[in-house]
């Protein structure tokens, strides 16, 4: 056996802590090692070329590289091995960066640990077998989950490239949060004017199937070949007959709207049969089973159904389960706005005139509940308004992160509120964060417009007065950190700039698609810089605020990137699968079936004729659960054979 060993300095990332030359010399003495070298950047072209040349010149038949995480460069060195003429799986990578240099300070101890890690790999690699990657065909269709601006943009990009796309949206309409807004920062574009054409484009695109009021309930399969089950909730409307004339809403037995209108953030009421907003896409009404008398009790005169001359209303309709086969999935499930009730100091839910920013978005919206007139819950028009930043952002007690969009949307709301009301606007910020093209200029414009900016985290909003001028007002108490004293500012209306957080069910969605979440709950990208829209599940991509707070331009850019990645995958026509799968040695299998229910990917079936288990290697993800559980030891996993693992253990301990 002729093993080649290489240790990477990774600049000073590794060599700053580990004595690379000492490890190199140590490895050179280990049995079977024919070549041992160190180099500043093994992943660079010269580094890889060194490996290729050594394999050819020194007839190497095994390769060990001690460097960074295999998730970063395993593939790089496998390719180098193959280029030199070696089977790529005669290679073992040792992670001495993340697992060692980055987490230790004691240089001598870190070097000793690196030697142990290296000896483990060198002992193990002898037992490696030649393996081949399997190539499987890829389904060219793509599923996009979430119909906000991210999902809309990704779906359109893919559809325009000729791919067949299914867009699944949980709500009764697409549009997401952007559909709530009146204007967008910093250009003050009308949000509807730029969004609704894209919504109709989705609806009318021949390559897009739009399923609203629907949720993904099951995901099976693997990269290139996902089988997805979608629950299409019924609206109790025959979608092919409804034309969105709204006669049924007019005819509903509830003469006046009585139930919370979610689209208007509860600032208005709706009937059990509703359409969220005039540009809702698809243009269909929906009947809410929670509030509809017929659906709750079966005892209604069903005036809505009578009023429908197309007979589109049918209370007997049931939810449907639909199956889809796709090659790639883009998740664009968006965010939740922070619930300002959690911030008890600011009086949301206690004082009627304390508003969340999303409520104010509806309040200033020309098609909102007041047609854009800013009239408070007590019927008054505000003469002074306070806007409080960082509600549920940069806060140890709630969410620690900066939500990135709040400074800018607060400025936008300040501008719009001033324009609509002529009120004095007080804007309370910790730091003004305007990092975007022409964003700082927008801040400057607001300074010129005479908005009062006060730097300081607001302590509380209350309704008790210290002076006669404060009577009947909401008082904002804040330490003005520029002026250096505590101020009390009486206002009529308070706007809480809520931060962005992961959706409540992000954890369930994460498990459904088998991807990861960061500590703050947002979906985890594969690499923060180099794979920002990929996930650790091949073929599943993320876009928009489900990955972290971001504004509309960044969301659209990311959605385009996700679409391009999905396109690159499905356009290739085939995909190579890792060979680290399990297989059953038939003669040793006793047919106990203990492995069958354990497999998280349903890759194991039982052959009743032969009384043996059998593993579908295409479905197998190489998790190793079956191999560990098999009582007769008849399940083997490539790259994790007993002798390989024992070799590694022996190497690290000897």
């Amino acid at each position, binding site marked *: 056996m002729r093993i080649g060993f290489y240790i990477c300095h990774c600049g000073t990332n590794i060599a700053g802590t580990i004595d690379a030359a000492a490890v190199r010399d140590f490895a050179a003495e280990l049995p079977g090692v024919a070549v041992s070298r160190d180099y500043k950047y093994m992943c660079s072209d010269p580094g890889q070329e060194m490996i290729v040349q050594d394999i050819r010149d020194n007839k190497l038949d095994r390769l060990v590289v001690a460097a960074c995480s295999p998730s970063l460069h395993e593939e790089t060195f496998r390719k180098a091995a193959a280029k030199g003429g070696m089977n790529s799986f005669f290679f073992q990578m040792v992670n001495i960066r993340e697992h060692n240099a980055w987490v230790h300070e004691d240089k001598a101890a870190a070097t000793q640990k690196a030697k142990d890690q290296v000896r483990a790999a060198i002992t193990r690699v002898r037992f490696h077998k030649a393996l081949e990657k399997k190539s499987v065909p890829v389904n060219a269709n793509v599923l996009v989950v979430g119909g906000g601006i991210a999902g809309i943009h990704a779906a359109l990009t893919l559809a325009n490239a000729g791919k067949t796309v299914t867009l699944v949206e949980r709500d009764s309409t697409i549009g997401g949060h952007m559909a709530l807004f009146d204007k967008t920062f910093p250009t003050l574009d009308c949000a509807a004017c730029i969004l609704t054409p894209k919504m109709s484009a989705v609806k009318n695109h021949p390559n897009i199937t739009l399923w609203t009021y629907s949720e993904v309930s099951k995901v099976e399969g693997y990269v290139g070949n996902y089988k997805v089950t979608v629950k299409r909730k019924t609206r109790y409307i025959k979608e092919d007959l409804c034309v969105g004339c709204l006669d049924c809403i007019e005819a509903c037995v509830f003469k006046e709207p009585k139930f919370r209108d979610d689209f208007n953030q509860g600032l208005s009421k709706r009937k059990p049969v509703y359409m969220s907003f005039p540009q809702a896409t698809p243009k269909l009404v929906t009947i809410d089973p929670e509030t509809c008398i017929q659906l709750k009790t079966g005892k209604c005169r069903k005036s809505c159904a009578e009023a429908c001359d197309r007979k589109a209303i049918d209370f007997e309709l049931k939810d449907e389960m639909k199956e889809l086969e796709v090659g790639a999935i883009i998740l664009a499930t968006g965010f939740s706005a922070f619930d300002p009730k959690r911030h*008890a*100091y600011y*009086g949301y839910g*206690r004082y009627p005139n304390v508003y969340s920013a999303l409520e104010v978005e509806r309040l200033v919206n020309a098609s909102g509940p007041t047609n854009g007139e800013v009239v408070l819950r007590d019927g008054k028009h505000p003469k002074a308004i306070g806007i409080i930043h960082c509600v549920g952002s940069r806060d140890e007690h709630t969410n620690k992160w900066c939500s990135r969009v709040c400074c800018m949307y607060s400025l936008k709301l300040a501008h719009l509120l001033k324009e609509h009301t002529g009120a004095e606007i007080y804007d309370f910020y910790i730091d003004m964060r305007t990092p975007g093209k022409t964003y700082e200029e927008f801040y400057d414009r607001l300074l010129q417009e005479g908005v009062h900016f006060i730097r300081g985290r607001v302590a509380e909003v*209350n*309704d*008790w*007065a*210290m002076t006669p001028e404060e009577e009947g007002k909401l008082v904002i108490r804040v330490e003005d950190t520029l002026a250096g004293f505590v101020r009390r500012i009486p206002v009529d209306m308070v706007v809480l700039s809520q931060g962005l957080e992961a959706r409540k069910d992000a954890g369930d969605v994460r498990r459904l698609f088998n991807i990861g979440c960061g500590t703050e709950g947002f979906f985890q990208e594969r690499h923060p810089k180099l794979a920002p829209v990929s996930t650790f599940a091949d073929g599943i991509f993320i876009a928009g605020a489900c990955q972290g707070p971001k504004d509309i331009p960044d969301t659209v850019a990311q959605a385009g990137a996700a679409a391009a990645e999905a396109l690159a995958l499905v356009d290739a026509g085939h995909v190579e699968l890792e060979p680290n799968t399990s297989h059953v040695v038939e003669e040793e299998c006793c047919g106990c079936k203990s492995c069958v229910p354990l497999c998280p990917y349903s890759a194991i079936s039982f052959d009743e004729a032969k009384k043996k288990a059998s593993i579908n290697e295409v479905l197998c993800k190489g998790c190793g659960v079956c191999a560990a559980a098999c009582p007769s030891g008849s399940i083997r996993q490539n790259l994790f054979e007993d002798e390989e693992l024992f070799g590694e253990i022996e190497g690290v301990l000897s």
Partner: protein
Amino acid sequence: MKYLYYPGCSLKGSGKAYEESLLAVFRALGVPLAELDDWNCCGATAYMSVEETKSYALAARNLAIAEREGLDVIAPCSACYLVLNKTQHALQENAGIRSRVSGALGAAGLSYQGHVRVRHPLDVLINDIGLDAVKKKIVNPLKGRRFAPYYGCQLVRPYSTFDDPVNPVTMDKLVAAAGAECVEYPLKTRCCGGSLTGTVPEVGQRLSYILIKEAMKRKAEAIVTVCPLCQFNLDGYQDQISSRFSEVRLPIVYFTQVLGLAMGLPSGQLGIHRGIIDAGAVLTAR
């Protein structure tokens, strides 16, 4: 259920009505309180800033004595509750203080292992005895009365774990159990003026004034408190406050007095007559 009772100086003096009503209510609920043997001053906040080790040792002496009994200590006075819990934290987290204090205790033949839990009567009533058990004893609900529940600054911050530090609600629940209505009172954890009322009266009384004025504005018929100093500051200076700012007049009562009357206990056992502003008239059903 049995507890040690640590009165502190206030409940034996200006807060006598608190002691009387507290003991009467617990007696009526069948929960015995045994006064801590040979207790001493908690040190309050003043001593803390003068001589750290001595002040901790002073408070720890009470904890050491209590530990021998193996029972939770009830400290009804907010300052005592704060200081004893602060001492507990300091002993747990600071090895230097722990060793100095343990030396001081050792000189007096005492030792403290850190096992005592310092509780507030609100905590015990809600979490140990339970709201249901309290409700069962209510025979004389104070129907139609509106009170402002006032917790003061020291009880729920920073050491309490039994209630929300921003918007505490345990007393609200007990007042409601007594049949009265709690007015919306966002000032419930604001400072009453504390010792400033004695040292810089124009500042201290201004704080008291806002509390009373706002309670009156919200149509409360009394402020219900948990702290002897708050009760004293708010009750004792209303004439001066009225002449300094504007006319205020509002009874300031302990939550135990409200509970006691609703439980049908005689007002003589509850110290109702001890208040400066007469509270008798508002502590009955309308």
